[in-house]
């Protein structure tokens, strides 16, 4: 029993970081209906930023947040402005975003491979392998810190969305784009900002996973597959869903990995994806697509 609790604790700690990665992705879908297949690639790119800040300047990965977040925020707004307005209003917008971001993912991966080679990298701050013992359970320090940081960033995101005028505009756009336009929201501006915020969250995730999961450029495919499973489980475009889906699946993957071996851990995500699509295709907190 206490072993199971230990597995669940580890799962929840990881889940917090997954939630941070998934929230950026689901925000982009929620506001702009963009399925951003390049989200994982940008997370890996942020890992490299954190890695070089750590190795060459000695910056702790948590300090590197101060660089990765604003850097990726600006990069996100630039990418949105450069790529998406020209396909806006296209009857096949959804499909086009998949192709466009798929190409973007390949380009980012190619650039990273060219510049940084395919070598496995990882930041290794002193606490990377530490753990704190509480009663019968132990808590890995690095995962604890990154999970706490994720929670802080998610609470900040929530506060922004629910207590600021711009946050209201973002939520309004998520709920009904036309209605948002009708009440005077500049949806182009909101979209640019939301893409920037989603990318800032990708940047933050990169700093946080740089010491949790060793990375190399092509690693992002594995991440995007997991992240898509998380946000589909939670309901595409639902932030609450992304958080709940991330926690649930991280715990489930932990339990499966503990019982059947780590080989089966990724299976958990895709098994859950199949199940949810069979049983409740709109996801836990999603809404059925409206026709017309």
């Amino acid at each position, binding site marked *: 029993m206490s072993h199971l609790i230990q597995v669940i604790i580890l799962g929840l700690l990881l889940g917090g970081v997954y939630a941070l990665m998934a929230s950026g992705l689901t925000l982009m879908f929620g506001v702009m209906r963009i399925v951003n297949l390049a989200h994982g690639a940008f997370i890996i790119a942020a890992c490299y930023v954190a890695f070089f800040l750590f190795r060459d300047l000695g910056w702790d990965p948590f300090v590197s947040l101060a660089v990765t977040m604003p850097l990726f925020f600006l990069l996100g707004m630039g990418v949105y402005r450069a790529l998406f307005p020209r396909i806006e*209003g296209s009857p096949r917008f959804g499909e086009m975003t998949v192709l466009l971001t798929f190409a973007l993912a390949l380009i980012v991966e190619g650039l990273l491979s060219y510049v940084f080679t395919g070598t496995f990298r990882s930041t290794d701050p002193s606490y990377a392998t530490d753990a704190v013992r509480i009663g019968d359970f132990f808590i890995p320090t690095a995962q604890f810190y990154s999970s706490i940081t994720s929670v802080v960033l998610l609470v900040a995101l929530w506060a922004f969305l629910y207590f600021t*005028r711009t946050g209201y505009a973002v939520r*309004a756009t998520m*709920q*009904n784009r*036309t209605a948002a336009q009708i009440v005077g929201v500049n949806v182009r501006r909101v979209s640019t900002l939301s893409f920037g915020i989603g990318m800032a969250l990708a940047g933050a995730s990169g700093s946080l996973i740089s010491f949790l999961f060793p990375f190399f450029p092509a690693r992002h495919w594995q991440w995007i597959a997991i992240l898509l499973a998380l946000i589909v489980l939670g309901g595409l475009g639902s932030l609450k869903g992304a958080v709940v889906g991330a926690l649930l699946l991280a715990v489930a993957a932990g339990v499966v990995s503990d019982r059947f071996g780590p080989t089966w851990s990724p299976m958990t995500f895709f098994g859950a994806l199949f199940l949810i699509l069979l049983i409740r295709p709109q996801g836990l907190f999603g809404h059925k697509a409206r026709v017309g």
Partner: protein
Amino acid sequence: MALLELQDVTSGYGYGPDILNGISLSVESGRAYCIIGPNGAGKSTLLKTVAGLLRPRRGQILLDGEPIGGRRPDLVLDSGICYVPQDRSLFPEMSVRENLVMGAFLEPDRGVVSERMGRVFEMFPVLKDRVNQRAGTMSGGEQQMLALGRALMIEPRLLMIDEPSLGLAPQVAEQIFDIIRKLRELEMTLLLVEQNVLKGLACTNWAFLLDLGELRLEAASDEILDDPRIRELYLGRQRAGSQPGAGIGDDT
């Protein structure tokens, strides 16, 4: 000078064909107008083009003589034109209050916003009772009232309402028409698209008859109601008992 003037406006969706074909019309301040015509005539397209949701392909849209055609919807709203679409377009996850607050998104003065909300509650007491209810869980009639209330939060100079009675039970639709009559008495400039032609004409001063994207006729609303020839030509189906367009969602 006319409040709103359309000069030879042509418009349509995406890369699709022209839906509006060179429409010219003008709207005077303080009067209520009804746009009638069969399905596909371009009634909603006209409203969407004026609201800035569609860009005119040709022609000019003038507000107080200033061209506003092709402006972003938020700028069109800021200049005083508010649009209530056919599907109400509420924020389903937000409460009645939040929806109304969003209606005044462009109004920075909170005092003004709460004052206007008071006036909206006076006109729609049901919204006051439901102030914390989520918009998505309300009935069709209540949603339409919320959509109208939200539009009044910006105190528009021109209010465009698209098929307000669509999908509503007759007695609920009657409440909506009462509201529209009240707005007309308050001398708000109204541009109404209505599938229930007789009702629509009864609560407006002037009517535009659209067909296949062209303006076929314009006349005083009661004149159209009284003219047997026009009734025969355009309102025939109405008398036969079926309302043109009723229950059909595909309206452009």
